[in-house]
């Protein structure tokens, strides 16, 4: 990935994604949007995670065996590294061949930072992966991003080797 494309990608993403975003910039009151915001009216399972279509079990199994569901980041960075770019290209090819629909992109961080800052950094990483995949021709509408900050480490260790594995983006088929 070259970062130079990022600006263009951002425009593409903004155009394609705006219809499904509830933009807080409009200064509208969410209360007016419907009963979902009323007291206790929230029903579990209506989260935005279920926005996209689910994938076939067989596709999921094939993907699980693929080994390109994970990319890694440098410390306090959301830039897509060369090794990560190669993985994402593999995934984009897989997605095309298998007609993948509905992808959740998770952003994770190592433990060497505060909880709150890492929540923001994780979202940035998830979106960096999303932008890269859109740049490879994937449909923006099928992606959901979620940050887990440093709360869900892949490795339990407290050393640089573990942290390097925990600074990651994870691709999950819905």
């Amino acid at each position, binding site marked *: 990935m070259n970062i130079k494309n990022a600006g263009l990608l951002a425009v593409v993403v903004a155009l394609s994604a705006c219809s499904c975003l509830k933009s807080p910039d409009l200064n509208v009151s969410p209360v007016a949007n419907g009963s979902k915001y009323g007291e206790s009216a929230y029903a579990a399972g209506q989260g935005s995670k279920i926005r996209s279509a689910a994938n076939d079990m067989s596709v999921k199994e094939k993907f699980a065996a693929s080994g390109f569901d994970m990319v890694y980041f440098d410390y306090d960075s959301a830039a897509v590294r060369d090794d990560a770019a190669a993985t994402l290209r593999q995934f984009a090819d897989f997605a095309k061949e298998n007609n993948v629909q509905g992808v959740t992109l998770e952003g994770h961080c190592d433990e060497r930072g505060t909880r*709150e800052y890492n*929540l923001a950094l994780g979202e940035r990483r998830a979106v960096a992966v999303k932008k890269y995949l859109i740049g490879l021709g994937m449909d923006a509408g099928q992606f959901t991003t979620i940050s887990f900050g440093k709360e*869900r480490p892949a490795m339990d260790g407290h050393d640089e080797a573990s942290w390097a594995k925990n600074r990651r983006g994870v691709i999950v088929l819905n």
Partner: protein
Amino acid sequence: MTGGDVWFCRLRDLGDLRCLLSDGFGGSFYFRDLWFFVHGADMVPAMRTFILSLFILTASIGQAFAAVTINLSNPGESPVPIAVPTFYAVNPEAQSYAEDITGVVRNNFKNSTPFKILNEKGYLQTPEQLFQNGPLFNDWRSINTDVVLVGTVEVINGQQLKVDYRLYDTQTEKQLKGHSFKSDLRFMRHLAHRVSDDVYTQVTGEPGYFATRIVHIGEDKGLDGKNQTKLCVMDQDSANYQCLTDGSSLTLGPKFNKTLQTIIYMSYESGTPKLYLLDMPTGKQTIVGDFEGLNSTPRFSPDGKRVAMTMTAGHEGNSEIYEMDLGSRRLSRLTYHRGIDTSPSYNPEGDKIVFNSDRGGSPALYIMNSDGSNVTRLTYGTGRYYSPAWSPRGDLIAFVKQRAGVFHIGVIDPQGNEERLLTDSWMDDNPTWAPNGRVIAFQRQANRSDRSRMFTIDLTGYNLRELPTPTNASDPAWSPLIR
């Protein structure tokens, strides 16, 4: 109690000593400076509830003289030697209460910087002698006591607890302060904290912080081996520990509002991170932040009417700070920058916000007006700054600093001067202030370990103490003073 003013409160169950302040019932909280309305909270609707009336009577006893004082701003100041003889039980059924209350008060002073509590084995007068004859000041001076706290406890009709105390200066042989409290038996610990706060205020000239609670995240491994995060509350001395959620979903960053009636927090309960308000009296949960992407770091404004939060919706993964008016649920965007903006914290007036941003190249602290205008950088030191918390006194901002692999809790004044680091460890995070702005609680992860606990440290950098909790604990947020 004067004519017809009956206050109601709801308690969760008999064993519950949760004693929360409300201004949500019947308007004014204070009634001729004598009557206090205190109510507990029923947090889970399924639990049995009942209603009882409760009041705490307070009345001054005798004259006050200001003689013994300590200046808290001077780190070299010696603590005030204080004696706390066991409170005298006026009737037999008060005996265990008297012992318990004395224990709570002694423990408060033991953990608190301004006091040095003298061992009761050296006391020459028995509680009974004190009750009958008053303090023999020669005796107390002979064991180098500057102040002696003398208390009595009485159980009335098997239902109410009456606690009287008198604080004496052994040098001037005068009473510094005296007061009488009365309330339901189950608020025994609260009464002990009220006495402790009175003594603290008399000796230091500053508000106390003992009648407070700390909301936080309790962390544990579930039966499936997975990490569980629960929304938990406890008194500042770790008593009345209770978790309000079952830990099945990732839950982070709870904060009390100013009346302790509402907790706002972040949860992945629905699958994605959203912000929830928990109304303590009813147990009702309401979603307030449910936008695409991240909804995190909720903070009540000091008046409780607004919430500052971090969101990424519409910004392609870029976190920005917003403010929501809780009445109208209207949102205002406060930050406009491609960098990460997060961890907002209001000043006591509610007209300024300090926050964390990497817009300058690495994480640092910035201050803006609460409408988002006039952003200025606060920290320029080497290292990375995070998680600012504006003191309730307004005079300092606490923060986390990461430098050369070490994490610190530090403080800096709002002009960006006088930076001081109070701690250093492998990982410190989430500082929060006691309501008097003298003590900071934070979480600490032990060196290359899964162990995480909450600690307190005095603003002077002395008196580091672990807050005992049954499990790992994080994200402490100190409540305002409960009155």
